[in-house]
């Protein structure tokens, strides 16, 4: 055989060995499986919440909670702590907004009803109730119609039903004969046992 043919054959063999080595590595170390992306359990085709409420665009926009995919080199505990901190930040923002009475604050609260994180969505429902505007009722009902999770659907419907109730101020207006004397406050309950 000619030396050129021998060299070509040797190179081909070497390439084969290298190929087998790489394939072996690939099988030996499978790629890390990314966790499922947190998504609100809403049926496809659900209309965006923001579009269903009249009023100006919210000035107080909340940043979406970031979902981070862990890799082999990332500390998963640190990521979980970071994610928790981000959720807490959103919840605190909602608590901050619910004491206001302006349309922008309501819009910002309603935008969190479709947050990818369940804890934030729950806090948004509570903030909507505490905000106390009937403008939120169609949004809550609309969202409930597209929500798959039964518990979340019930929470949305309950919130809408609560906001539909007349307020104490409205009831007072309908009762001009309202009594002005003090109602007897409840007696002091017994002292509770010491807490742990």
């Amino acid at each position, binding site marked *: 055989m000619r030396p050129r043919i021998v060299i070509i054959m040797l190179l081909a063999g070497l390439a084969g060995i290298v190929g087998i080595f790489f394939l072996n590595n690939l099988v030996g170390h499978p790629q890390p499986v990314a966790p499922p992306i947190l998504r609100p359990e809403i049926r496809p085709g659900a209309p965006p919440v923001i579009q269903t409420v009249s009023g100006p665009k919210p000035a107080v926009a909340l940043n979406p909670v970031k979902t981070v995919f862990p890799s082999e080199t990332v500390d998963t505990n640190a990521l979980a702590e970071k994610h928790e901190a981000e959720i807490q930040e959103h919840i605190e923002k909602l608590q901050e907004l619910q004491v206001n009475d302006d349309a922008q604050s309501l819009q910002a609260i309603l935008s969190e009803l479709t947050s990818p994180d369940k804890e934030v969505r729950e806090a948004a429902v509570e903030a909507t109730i505490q905000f106390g505007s009937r403008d939120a009722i169609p949004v809550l009902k609309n969202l409930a119609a597209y929500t798959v999770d039964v518990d979340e659907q019930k929470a949305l419907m309950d919130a809408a039903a609560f906001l539909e109730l007349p307020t*104490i101020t409205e009831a007072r207006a309908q009762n001009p004969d*309202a009594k002005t004397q003090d109602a007897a406050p409840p007696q002091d309950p017994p002292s509770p046992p010491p807490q742990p």
Partner: protein
Amino acid sequence: MKLTKLSLGCALVTGLMAFAPVQSQAVVIANNLYSPLNVKFAVSYVSGSNKTAVIKTVAFTGKDVLKDAGFTSHVSMAVAANNDVVVLYQNGKTTTVAADLSTGTTTASAKIILTPLISITKTNNGATLVSQAGIIEFVAYKTATLTTNSAAWVDLKGTYSKTVNTSKTVNGKYTSSVSLKAAGLSGVGADTSLISTTPLPTTGSGSATGSGKLTPPI
């Protein structure tokens, strides 16, 4: 062009700061963590009389309670680590305890009484998680004020769950996170404006969550 954009940006930031909303998130005052307290109630009553009588239900929240009790704006209800209910007042970036409803004011009072029935404590590398569940009682009343000429009270009971997460102390500080939830409260209430000083069927719920950095006791 860049200078114009910068000026506009600064003006916008200044404007947003001027109209910054009331802060209601958890706050630490004198090394005490106060978590915002969300409560809501529904009271049923008889409206009208004889043939026109119907049972109606009215709803109110903690926000309504504070307005009713004569507290002005920039206030929010919160619960301390020892379960005391307070009214927080925010003036700019400074938050203070405006009233301790657990001891009561001239116009309002509110108490949370927890009776834990089960409890677990887990520790891990300096961090502690306490989870408990039991019976909660929420008692509140308000007298007639200049804002409203009616008096009202509620006394509700139910079950609750509470978690207190305490982190490891780092650089002389630790983080405390509290979560208190009581979903299905029921009991009695009354409001003189509903032409009733007798107990009325009342339902409600309450929750308080918050976290903040505290200094460990010496």
